[in-house]
């Protein structure tokens, strides 16, 4: 009881004490912009989200908003695995994730020139064949059938495949093979990746990573052909909206 009364009295005294306010430092300010709010993204994905293709991390600037939004939901809700992404996004709302996606999608920034990436000619030839023609014998569609003739993506939610690091591309196909990466059902990319032997994963990643990004780098409005297999992602976000 005594302790309780002392606590109440002291709390009152502290609230009345203006000493702290008198010697307060001048206020500091921060720009009221998304670029400022989203600084954690830039730390890994590069200034303005345009990571180069030399490291591992993907460029996010200019990717379709629907695609980016789906990936943010996947990381938050456990369909893609990356401890840093999960930790950053765990307590963010659908609305804010959509805003983040829209911000990076709207950035229209030039790509750097393709760095020299030594790869055997036969590997590159195999990769080009897979990317542009597919493999009919194994019922594998060409990348370009869904990701656009120029491989720069298709709106609203199919990402471009150019300008990405080779290691990142290999890791994504591998993650789909082991179901560490998942997309909305029907998960067409899981089907495709699981039909790719390891050598073909290496080939298609090597070729894609060696291609320059065309001046018209944006995702196209519609796919060049009818979708070769059903894809839950291509229709755009719907996603598991939980909040």
């Amino acid at each position, binding site marked *: *009881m005594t*302790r*309780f009364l*002392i*606590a*109440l*009295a*002291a*709390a009152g005294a*502290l*609230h009345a004490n203006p000493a*702290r306010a008198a010697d*307060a*430092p*001048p*206020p*500091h*300010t*921060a720009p009221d912009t*998304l670029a*400022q*709010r*989203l*600084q*954690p*993204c*830039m*730390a890994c994905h590069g200034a303005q989200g345009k990571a180069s293709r030399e490291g591992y991390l993907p460029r996010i600037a200019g990717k379709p908003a629907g695609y980016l939004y789906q990936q943010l939901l996947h990381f*938050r*809700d*456990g*369909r893609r695995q990356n401890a*840093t992404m999960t*930790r*950053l*996004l*765990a*307590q*963010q*709302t659908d*609305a*804010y994730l959509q*805003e983040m996606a829209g911000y990076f999608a709207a950035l229209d920034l030039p790509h750097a020139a393709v760095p020299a990436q030594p790869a055997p000619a036969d590997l590159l030839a195999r990769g080009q064949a897979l990317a542009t023609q597919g493999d009919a014998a194994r019922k594998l569609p060409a990348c370009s059938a869904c990701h656009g003739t120029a491989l720069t993506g298709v709106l609203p939610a199919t990402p471009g495949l150019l300008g990405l690091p080779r290691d990142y591309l290999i890791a994504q196909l591998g993650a789909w093979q082991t179901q560490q990466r998942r997309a909305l059902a029907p998960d067409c990319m899981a089907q495709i990746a699981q039909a790719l032997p390891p050598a073909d994963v290496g080939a298609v990643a090597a070729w894609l990573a060696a291609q320059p990004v065309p001046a018209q780098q944006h995702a196209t409005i519609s796919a060049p052909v009818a979708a070769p297999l059903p894809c839950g992602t291509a229709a755009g976000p719907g996603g*598991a909206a*939980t909040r």
Partner: protein
Amino acid sequence: MSGITTRWRAALAVLLLLAVLLALVTWLNLRGEEPLQPDPPTAAAPDATLIARGAYLARAGNCAGCHTARGGAAYAGGRGIDTPFGTVYAGNLTPDASGLGGWTAAQFRRALWHGRSADGRLLAPAFPYTHFTRVTRADADALWAFLRSLSPVAQANRPHALRWPYDSQAALAVWRALYFRPGAGDDGLPANATDQLKRGAYLVNGLGHCSACHAPRSLLGGSGSLGDSAGSATLPGQRWQAPSLTDPAEIGIGRRPTADWVRLLKTGLADHAAVMGPMAEVVADSTQHLAEADLQAMVAYLQALAPASAPAPTRLPSRDAVVMDRGRQLYADHCASCHGPQGQGVRGAYPALAGNPTVTLPEPGNLLQAITGGGFAPATAGNPRPYGMPPFDLPHDDLAALATWLRASWGHDAAPVSPVQVVLTR
């Protein structure tokens, strides 16, 4: 002859002792429990007001926090809760046959108040019935009405992955005999305390189950109480620590006005602090949804529990001038642009570091987590687009220097952090 008699006597004594112990444990487990009475069939369906009240109380208890798997259906269970004894999987609370579909209201109340499942089995105390035993009959009925109103989700409960002997009913019975007292319990308030303080105590010690994290547990997992505990509690399976809410050497809840803490719980961000780690989840899923009056009551109660003055400062080892210079430089390079040259922060964006309780906690673990992990404050109705902090993956020596400098600047006087501590807590 007499040797045999002595042996028999000893055996009899041991048997008697065991029987008495068994009876004691049984009695300790069953005391205060009334026989299950089937509820009288109610004519009308529960009204919307009762369901809404139940939904609010479910927020106050953050039921969904444990009973929802990441990316899963709300209240359908499946999330694994790490404990020092293994992993406990939260159950499905939706009214499906795989959830609470077959339960009665009386069985639900018994689970809240006495920690027993519909079939009478003892529940693992990761389910904080140690706290929910304080929930009133009216609130229990509102919660039940709300849970019955959810859409049924068919999702079978996953069995716990507890190590022997913690997975046995006998172990749970002994645990309950040691640590569980059904009923209202002692809130540490005088009989003539205001209604506001009583309301705060009810929320903090009941549904809010704050001490489940914010009080150190005994070796066998017995929950401490908020008022008597000192020091931070390490959260099982995590690198975060839950600071004591009442120890003046920790967050110093009595040193700031009630409104500051209410704002922190309502929005996740106050001038002097941002919530991080597991508490960000608590704010996002629970406290931001509570009425200001309830948050004020909770903070006022915690402030009333906290001893008024800080303990006398301890004699700290002197700080190395080279380390301090390095820390100052690192702050200028990495931190000052957002947190301000004098640690003053930016209102509504970046918390001040001067006077920030996370900076000066006796254990520097949360400070190091904040620097190395960065992150966003939770997105809440009051702070829907939080500013984020990048992770700073600094070398051990630099991290120690920065933390040491932060803990000695702007009037702070917290112990230096050594590179060895950094290695151990990272």
